């Protein structure tokens, strides 16, 4: 074999991840209610960060409007549950519907370049917000709740939402891992770095970008739908707020943009900061802003980027390494 796609660290990582997953699956039987609720939030953050990283980090598509899919995921769940669909099925179908909707959206949004795309997505999110407000079921900014969750006892509900979030997070991360390692994954990074050159060597940029866009839309909709499940109430203003994208940007920039591990690390950091400092009010937001500024100034590749280049550490490799044996013998 002349090309390696894994290393000693990544093999250890796989085992550690399996172990961690097993621990997380049995956590509901041991942990307190509060821990379960907080972990659910963490899983959703990781999904959000990973999805934004998919678009911006690997695809160069910097969207400031991912709250569109977050909000629509929650809204579609409300609508489907209102039609009588069991809430947990609704969460999943809602995300699929939003994924389908993102296909026509991609048709015109992906024609926009760089900042135009970013701002255009924000505009679209605002339009989505206004349209959802027109639905009488939502009662404008008053909002509504996912009432059908009341069919479950509070303890059961908490565990089910936790498990749903765990399954969704794991599924999306595994999906992203394989997407990035596929032919499309390396093509997307080529497009990010130079679309004209990618075109000149046979890469179909529009198609690749479309699939990444749809994947990120689907994942972000899953996050929105899960958020609704754990918060149970829906106000359009909250769900379609740009703050969600701001959080995603924060997590990805601090963790390490364009690195699989970076988004996860960023989400963990954001979660930790929120857990410890959210009570400090305004200073919490000031702190988040300061950290983001400092990171982009001194660690442009984020925390994971710095770790990676210092230690040569790749825990979840999505790239290609030419093996040492291949590099050595030929000295032509």
């Amino acid at each position, binding site marked *: 074999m*002349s*090309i390696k796609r894994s290393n000693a660290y990544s093999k250890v990582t796989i085992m550690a991840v399996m172990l961690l997953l097993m621990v997380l699956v049995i956590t509901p039987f041991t942990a307190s209610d509060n821990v379960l609720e907080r972990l659910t939030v963490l899983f959703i953050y990781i999904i959000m960060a990973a999805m934004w990283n998919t678009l911006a980090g690997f695809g160069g598509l910097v969207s400031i409007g991912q709250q569109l899919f977050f909000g629509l995921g929650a809204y579609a769940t409300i609508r489907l549950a209102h039609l009588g669909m069991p809430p947990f099925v609704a969460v999943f179908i809602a995300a699929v519907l939003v994924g389908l909707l993102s296909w026509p959206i991609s048709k015109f949004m992906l024609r926009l370049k760089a900042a135009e795309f970013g701002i255009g997505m924000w505009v679209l999110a605002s339009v989505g917000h206004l349209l959802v407000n027109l639905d009488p079921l939502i009662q404008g900014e008053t909002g509504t709740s996912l009432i059908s969750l009341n069919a479950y006892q509070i303890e059961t509900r908490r565990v089910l939402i936790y498990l749903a979030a765990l399954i969704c997070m794991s599924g999306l991360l595994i999906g992203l891992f394989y997407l990035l390692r596929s*032919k499309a994954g*390396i*093509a997307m*990074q*080529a497009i*990010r*770095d*130079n679309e*004209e*050159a*990618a*075109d*000149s*060597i*046979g*890469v*179909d*940029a529009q198609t690749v970008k479309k699939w990444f866009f749809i994947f990120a839309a689907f994942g972000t909709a899953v996050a929105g739908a899960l958020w609704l499940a754990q918060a149970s109430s829906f106000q359009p203003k909250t769900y379609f707020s740009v703050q969600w994208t701001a959080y995603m940007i924060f997590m990805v920039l601090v963790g390490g943009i*364009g690195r699989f591990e970076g988004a996860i690390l960023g989400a963990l950091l954001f979660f930790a900061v929120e857990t410890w400092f959210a009570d400090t009010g305004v200073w919490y937001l000031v702190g988040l802003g300061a950290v983001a500024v400092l990171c982009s100034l001194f660690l442009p590749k984020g925390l994971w980027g710095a770790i990676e280049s210092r230690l040569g550490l790749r825990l979840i490799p999505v*790239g*290609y*390494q*030419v093996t040492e044996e*291949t*590099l050595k013998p*030929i000295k*032509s």
Partner: protein
Amino acid sequence: MENITYSQLQATGIHKSFGRVQVLNGIDFAMDTNDAIGIVGPNGAGKSTLLSVLSGAQAPTKGEIILNNQTITHSPARQRAKQGLVRTHQIPKPFSGITVFENVFVAAIHAATNNREEAYDIALESIKLCGMLPLANRDADSIGLLDRKRLELARALATQPKLLFLDEIGGGLTEAEALALVDTILTLKERGIGIVWIEHIVHILLRVVKRLICMDSGQIIAQGDPQAVMSDQAVIRAYMGGSIDVVG
């Protein structure tokens, strides 16, 4: 001038303008896989634009391009790359966030083959041919300008082209490096790849090409045997400023 019927690539009456600026003004061009053609001409003559139009990066304003008896005038570059027609860029356009190997591999897996193992081999072979193997695992943004030019060539080769357009890949090379590059390109020629090479370093160019085209102001002002073209009065006036000895 020559009356050979080419089947591979044929461009007739190519015009290209950007707004009011006429960059190409009625170019006729034809070539086959056994050709090695040099293009010279002063800056702004339209050489790179001609490559862009032939390779599909830009559509001509007027004219027709035929590849293998099929009209490709408006087909995108990615499609032409899959049909075996690929170009390098005068200003290297590496995929800077991924490694040298990955830069080349992405070309192999998209234009040459769908088989991953085959694509690995093609990519490694192209990298070796361009003498870049020691840099294979380096990030493309960490290599120097000359290596970026080599990377342009390696990436283009990984598409397994039948016709290869080279845009000033020799610029800035030392004499020894340039001769090594000539060797590489002669190897490609032997493999049956048709070559079009834009270059200012004429004596390097003449080691490879059998036919020379001189362009000026968007037109071909002379073409044919390299020696004849280089001593053509119109060429000397346009390109050499009329005062330089003919290259031997």
